[in-house]
């Protein structure tokens, strides 16, 4: 049997828009999310958290809590594994504080009781004695000479001598000679930008149900983007064997990167082990804000030189990111993505990872890239303005294409940036007239995308339907996309494929649903698993017909002779083969395990119109168009959904979302009332254009789309707001007080 590896046309299923298989469950309430399960004898847990930004834990006395009727157990750091190193130590230290509480909301103890209310009351009875230490929450302040040291020895070898101990990692990359490049420029602009931390803002709080017996065997149900990762980390933190903990992923009410990390699951397991009962733990929303990962905040310096014709001669950036009290702020991604859209002879970028008294940052959709685009694309916009150049033409003139040496090192393969810019230029939005008080902004954005460890099985049923088990939690409609790809290969209806997110006991390791990898990597694995099954189906037909296996091919859900010489047999439908599979060699299962490495990078161009009320500083986004390269859109509706979702979150990040800390280092706005994500009426209809420049690394040309969509919005909105207000905004969020202050500064000269 021969099958072409690549298929780029003639699709019958891929590219259609059927209803998602989980849709009915979700609209009827049948879908089970993290907090939707119970177990007999289940206890409820509450976590005790530090009210201080930085404090030594002198003593924890839980005797009063343990004396309360209904309380079954209390855990502290002493109930977890010892001797951990590296990231496992960081995660444990974050999950349950050791000697020191490192931020407002840091967990210090937890209690399990027979009801949620008793657990809440018991938590108040746990007495923690603190010695308050000096704190710092701002990235620039944390790098200053006089900043309090969060933790000695946290820096790795990359950090140059003489830096403050709060600088824990350093990155430098680029090529050429930027000074020579700046000397060639007709105009050089250098500017400083800042962005505040924002939270992923998923609607479902973290929730789990854990059991862990005295035999070291446990079960965990939780809301996560990757349950094998949860399994591995929890086993390490609890000191048990990985295979003894079976983890099942619930339906997920949003993740956006924030649920790639582990926060409460080890605590629930420790309480389950201590009480020998199932323990349910659901995070209240203020805890989600205080103690799960927001993204990093930044302080950035950008310098770009341009010739009068729009050619960028050189670019450099310094990116300082704080990611809370632990190493991990994605400053290398910020640095590497910053100038990726442009073919530059001279480029240099530096990144600093800085620790502060804030929660441990977690991934948030293209971690680090949106902030870089904000700073870089603002400067490009300013250059275009001053040199009176068209912003799209200028970007086209400098755009990266196949063969460009990327600002972060490698050579680009086939990419679609030029195509997105051309499509944006041709879109009616770009030439539509603006009303007074409105401004238009353009930005490009880039994300690497990722492959990662992936395992899939596809089991055929006796009636010719198929059960596809994948290991990547469905955070964006991926079950529909997987079913479409399997249906395409098998030649059976989409509805005949049931896709399940398998638990850790039933598939090989699957990396988390991150890096925009699911439709790419699980999709590739699904296609390969289906082809594996098709090969076995053809072999059964060949045996029946008494002809060689390679004389049979698969067409429209049937085995057929591969040509006139193979023999004259009627097509054998899938159900005819599967009906007899028990007697013809046993169950037919296709599978595929690999670490695909051909995730194609992805670019987008966004167009935004904003209107600013000059009397109040309030911004309305009045029109928004996303143009992005999807490689190949498997289910266009969910591709568009990713585009719109990235824009919507970007609008929040740009305009109103921010972590606000008081002078005491405590988070001031840990509720949705004061952490202002956009509501539906804040958003315009977000128009989308799907560009398809196939990714050579995927059988159908798929590129991940989930993250690139949030890379351009901050910059595109800032450029639109700056045009509308007539003053450059260099700090996010562009909240009304900040815009009014900028207008006033400009009036006062």
């Amino acid at each position, binding site marked *: 049997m021969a099958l072409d590896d690549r298929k780029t046309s003639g699709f019958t299923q891929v590219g259609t828009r059927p209803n998602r298989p989980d849709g009915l469950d979700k609209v009827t309430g049948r879908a089970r999310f993290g907090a939707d399960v119970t177990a007999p004898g289940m206890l409820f847990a509450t976590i005790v958290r530090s009210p201080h930004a930085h404090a030594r834990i002198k003593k924890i006395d839980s005797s009063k809590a343990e004396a309360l009727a209904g309380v079954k157990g209390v855990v502290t750091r002493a109930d977890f594994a010892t001797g951990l190193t590296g990231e496992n130590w960081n995660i444990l230290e974050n999950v349950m504080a050791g000697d020191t509480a490192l931020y407002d909301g840091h967990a210090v103890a937890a209690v399990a009781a027979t009801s949620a209310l008793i657990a809440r009351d018991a938590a108040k009875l746990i007495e923690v004695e603190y010695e308050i230490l000096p704190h710092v929450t701002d990235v620039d302040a944390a790098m200053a000479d006089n900043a309090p040291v969060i933790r000695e020895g946290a820096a790795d070898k990359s950090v140059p001598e003489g830096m403050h101990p709060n600088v824990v990692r350093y990155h430098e990359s680029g090529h050429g000679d930027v000074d020579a490049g700046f000397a060639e420029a007709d105009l050089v602009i250098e500017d400083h930008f800042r962005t505040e931390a924002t939270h992923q803002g998923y609607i479902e709080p973290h929730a789990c149900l854990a059991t862990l017996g005295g035999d070291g065997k446990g079960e965990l149900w939780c809301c996560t983007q990757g349950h094998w990762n949860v399994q591995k980390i929890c086993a390490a933190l609890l000191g048990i064997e990985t295979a003894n903990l079976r983890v099942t992923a619930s339906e997920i009410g949003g993740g956006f990167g924030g649920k790639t990390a582990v926060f409460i699951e080890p605590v629930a397991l420790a309480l389950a082990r201590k009480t020998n009962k199932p323990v349910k733990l659901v995070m209240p929303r203020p805890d989600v804000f205080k103690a799960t990962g927001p993204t990093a905040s930044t302080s950035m310096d950008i310098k770009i030189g341009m010739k009068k014709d729009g050619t960028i001669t050189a670019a450099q950036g310094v990116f300082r990111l704080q990611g809370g009290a632990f190493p991990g702020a994605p400053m290398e991604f910020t640095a590497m993505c910053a100038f990726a859209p442009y073919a530059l002879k001279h480029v240099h970028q530096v990144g600093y990872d800085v620790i502060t008294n804030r929660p441990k940052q977690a991934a948030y959709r293209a971690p680090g890239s949106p902030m870089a685009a904000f700073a870089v694309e603002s400067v490009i916009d300013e250059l275009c303005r001053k040199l009176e150049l068209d912003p799209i033409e200028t970007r086209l003139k400098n755009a990266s294409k196949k063969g460009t040496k990327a600002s972060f090192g490698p050579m680009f393969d086939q990419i679609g940036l030029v195509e997105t810019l051309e499509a944006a230029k041709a879109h009616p939005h770009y030439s539509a007239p603006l009303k007074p008080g409105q401004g238009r902004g353009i930005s490009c954005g880039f994300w690497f995308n990722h492959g990662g460890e992936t395992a899939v099985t596809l089991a055929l049923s006796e009636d010719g339907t198929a059960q596809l088990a994948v290991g990547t939690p469905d955070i964006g409609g991926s079950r529909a996309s997987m079913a479409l790809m399997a249906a395409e290969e098998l030649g059976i209806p989409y509805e005949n494929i049931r896709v399940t997110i398998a638990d850790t006991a039933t598939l090989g390791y699957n990396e988390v649903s991150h890096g925009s990898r699911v439709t790419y990597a699980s999709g590739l694995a699904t296609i390969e698993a289906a082809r594996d099954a098709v090969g076995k189906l053809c072999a059964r037909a060949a045996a029946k017909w008494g002809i060689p296996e390679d004389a049979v091919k698969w067409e429209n859900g049937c085995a057929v002779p591969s040509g006139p010489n193979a023999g004259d047999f009627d097509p054998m439908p899938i159900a005819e083969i599967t009906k007899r599979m028990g007697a013809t060699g046993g169950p037919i299962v296709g599978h595929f395990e690999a670490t695909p490495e051909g995730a194609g990078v992805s670019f987008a161009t966004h167009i935004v119109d904003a209107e600013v009320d000059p*009397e109040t500083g309030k911004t309305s986004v009045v029109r928004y168009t996303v143009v992005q390269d999807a490689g190949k859109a498997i289910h266009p509706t969910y591709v568009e959904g990713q585009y719109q979702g990235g824009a919507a979150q970007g609008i929040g990040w740009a305009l109103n979302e921010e972590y*606000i800390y008081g002078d005491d280092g405590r988070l001031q706005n840990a509720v949705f009332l004061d952490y202002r994500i956009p509501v539906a009426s804040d958003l315009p209809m977000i128009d989308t254009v799907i560009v398809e420049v196939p990714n050579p690394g995927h059988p159908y040309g798929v590129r991940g789309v989930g993250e690139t969509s949030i890379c351009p919005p901050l910059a595109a909105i800032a450029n639109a707001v700056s045009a509308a207000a007539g003053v450059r905004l260099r700090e996010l969020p562009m909240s009304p007080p900040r815009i009014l202050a900028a207008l006033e500064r400009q009036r006062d000269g």
Partner: protein
Amino acid sequence: MQYHTPTSFDDAIAIAAQADGVTRFLAGGTDVLVQMRADILTPDTLINVKGIDGVKDITRTPEGGWQIGIAVSGAEMTEHPELGRDWPGVVEATDLIGSTQVQGRCTMVGNLCNASPAADAVPAMVAAGITVTVSGPDGTREVAVEDIPTGPGKTSLASGEMITRITLPPRGENGGDAYLRFIPRTEMDIAVVGCGINLRVDGDTITEARVALGAVAPTVRLVAEAAEAIIGTTLDDAALAALAEAASAACSPIDDKRGTIKFRTHVAGVLAQRAARIAYARATGQKDS
């Protein structure tokens, strides 16, 4: 916690008067239940007033005003066929509280007694000259709305007292009211500044006015200087400038997560101008702008 469901105001007052510790009345519950859930406050005594006769009624007074029961929800006010024609500002202000779901429960009295400086209904109520009937063990008194809140979360109600009725004055001829708030979003937010204005005209000239500001001081503020700035004028540019200046001058806000002192002070003037234009248009019979 003791939970009571009295069927008369007398019973409710008797329960409240005898209660120890923290007492809360439950009508819509959109503040008290949320505070309990969020572990901000757990009352010792919770008195559900929804079983009392007449608390869900909206009725015309003999003088041509309105009486509104203490458990009437925002949605019921918005959907009332006549109330909003007389007092569009009051109804619109109440309609701004929370979401559609919250509108089905929230009440004006709850908004008033929660005593948030940022309460949306209160500046409009103050501007409209609304009074409330306060009943307690020592009898009954009629109190102007502006005299109920005394500070954030605090009211002038004595222990055992409760509000039993809201009275809107007769609209009369040639009057109009309006309420505007500033929020960074379009809904589901809390006022950074609020302004209610109620005025009456004779021809083109303003003869009476009341201007109330929210979220710019510890309590909602009735600003006489701002009213004086537009009384006797046709709301020309000079009057609007004077109004904005008087409104801003009356502010003593705080810097917090929701807005800065400078921002609130400035926007109070902007909103006063905008609300005045709407109220003026309503009073002079122009179409709403």
